[in-house]
């Protein structure tokens, strides 16, 4: 084991995979400069710079994957997937079904996501629930270095399209890039345990669709992903002071969902709160309510989500994104 940052973990896993498997390559805007170490080691043929043409290169990656390669395509921020949505809506997600199960596309779309550093509503979205609405694609959101590497490994090995989302408050390179810019005058609420952590010397896959019980508890289940998990941890330790014992589930993948373990936890606690940095309506928080309800579980329920366009103003932004105070408030409301 060694201690790496989230960004380093992702990079080291990618490097390992690229060394192991020549069919793995990366493609995207600015990847040669942004992934300088990978470029230096693997050369331009495997680190392909693209024009700002997301629709074309995300689509191309699908065909490349169909022909036996394993592209890891960077779309920078998940917000930018809007110009390329057709490629996951009508192409990557449907190919396997359309072909009668005879052809598949093992493509990984890697995007930074999430807010909390003052970049405004077109650069801080999460959108994992939006992506996951479309059948045929997986959506992965790691919350710490070891998960990031292990899940990326599994994503690259997966035989179908996977979105791999890296929260900018965890991925130091992105935060430095988009938020800090070399300044010592700004500070962000970076979860230490998410941005840094022990990782194995050699990466092995963490299977998609397996949640992680971050903390055991008996009064309420807090379900989240990415940075939200760390907000839950902070909330949970404060709730302990008022004798509320919270269990925390880190979903790790939004699609597929680890239904079994969600049910098990909420059966135990009887109460659940979804902490979701993606938009509230028609998303993850609802899906979990539906799963619980259709499995005839009795549960108290609350959700702490992003309910509107993320405002630029830093205070409003912090209020809009799920935060510890809102989680605590909601827990108290729900368990009382």
């Amino acid at each position, binding site marked *: 084991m060694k201690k790496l940052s989230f960004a380093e973990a992702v990079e080291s896993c990618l490097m390992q995979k690229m060394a192991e498997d020549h069919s793995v390559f990366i493609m995207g805007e600015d990847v040669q400069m942004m992934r300088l170490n990978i470029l230096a080691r693997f050369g331009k043929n495997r680190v392909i710079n693209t024009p700002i043409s997301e629709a074309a290169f995300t689509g*191309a990656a699908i*065909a490349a994957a169909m*022909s036996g390669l394993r592209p890891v395509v960077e779309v920078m921020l998940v917000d930018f997937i809007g110009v390329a949505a057709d490629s996951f809506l009508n192409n990557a997600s449907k190919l396997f079904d359309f072909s009668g199960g*005879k052809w598949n596309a093992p493509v990984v779309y890697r995007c930074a996501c999430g807010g909390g550093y003052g970049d405004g509503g077109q650069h801080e979205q999460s959108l994992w629930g939006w992506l996951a609405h479309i059948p045929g694609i997986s959506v992965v959101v790691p919350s710490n270095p070891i998960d990031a590497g292990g899940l990326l490994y599994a994503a690259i090995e997966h035989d179908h399209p996977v979105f791999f989302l890296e929260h900018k408050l965890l991925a130091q390179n992105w935060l430095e890039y988009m938020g800090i810019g070399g300044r010592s005058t700004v500070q962000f609420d970076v979860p230490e345990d998410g941005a840094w952590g022990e990782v194995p010397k050699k990466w092995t896959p963490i299977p998609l669709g397996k949640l992680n019980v971050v903390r055991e508890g008996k009064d309420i289940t807090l379900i989240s992903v990415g940075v939200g998990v760390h907000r839950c941890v902070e909330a949970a330790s404060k709730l302990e002071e008022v004798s509320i014992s919270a269990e925390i589930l880190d979903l790790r993948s939004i699609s597929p969902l680890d239904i079994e373990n969600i049910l098990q936890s909420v059966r135990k606690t009887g109460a659940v709160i979804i902490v979701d940095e993606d938009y509230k309506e028609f998303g993850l928080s609802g899906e979990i309510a539906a799963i619980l309800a259709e499995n005839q579980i009795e549960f108290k329920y609350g959700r702490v989500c992003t309910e509107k366009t993320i405002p630029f103003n830093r205070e409003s932004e912090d209020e809009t994104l799920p935060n510890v105070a809102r989680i605590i408030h909601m827990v108290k409301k729900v368990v009382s």
Partner: protein
Amino acid sequence: MKKKDKKIDIAFYSKMYQLMYRSRKFEEIVMQLWHEGTIFGEMHMSVGEEAIHASIIKNLEDGDAIAVDHRGTAPFFMRGIDPISLLLEFIGHKDGLCSGQGGHMHLFSREHNMTSSGIVGATGSTAMGFALSHKYKNNKNIAVALFGEGAINQGMLLESFNMTSALELPVLFVCKDNNWAITTQSDSVTGGVLLDRAQGFGIAGEKINGLDFQESFSRIGYAIKTIRKTGKPYFIHATCVHREGHFLGDQLIALHRTTGKILGDLVGSLTKSLFKLKGGLVGERGESLGHILKIMTSSKHQLKSSVDPLVIAKKMLKNQGADVLSVEKKADQEIDQILKQTLQIIQGGNQL
């Protein structure tokens, strides 16, 4: 030398005609099944595009990829995909090419590196992805993107023009131009000249008469050789017609084939609208009607036999003394057989 060439040509072009003719006959079965209601949904035919498809297929090698748009029948049939599995796919049968899951707009053959898509413009990026893969693997294969002149205004296709050019990827872009996108005359919504547009992205190209199988074969052959040599994209702007209109049941085409009934209905309803109280100025209204009638009549052009690539090919071959009749006869029998076998399978109750 010249003579010998000619001889080879006749034998070769007879084969090409055979391919085109077989495809046409095959599509006639498709039409029949569609009209009978055995095939559901939309059905876009390749009828009128045969010279282009045959020219591409005859110039490709194993491993080359083709990204096909919504007019997949001819390219898939001509490439040699089992015609019964195609028909079964159109019908939605479990033994179809894609187990009946895709239908005619979503045909896939992994073995042949062939894909299709019902989303206009999607073929550009798909072909680019195959080309990228060829280059990555360092082989000499190419990829073909098929699309209509309407698709050439779709952003993702335009993006792939640029990207294949800048990254030097071996893609043959084939624009099949019938100047219609459903009911829109494409030149009324398209700026500039298509060859210039390709050139503006740094892609060499040429305009060809896609109704003429000789010209198509030789120019597309040249294009493909050039791509294999340079590794760069090439643009073919090929004129064509759609003798069945946008899709089967196309009202513009029906208009010309039936005896005025549809037109009568239409004019009745239009006249009502024209004389509604509020609306455009009287002059504008008259102009609108003229505009509509002009659109309607101009689609008729596609039905003339003088623009049928098969008629053109047949004439040339006959002039050269080729035995076209026996070619056709053999094909008729083959296609007949395909239909029979397909019907047997369906009636065998094997449906999904």
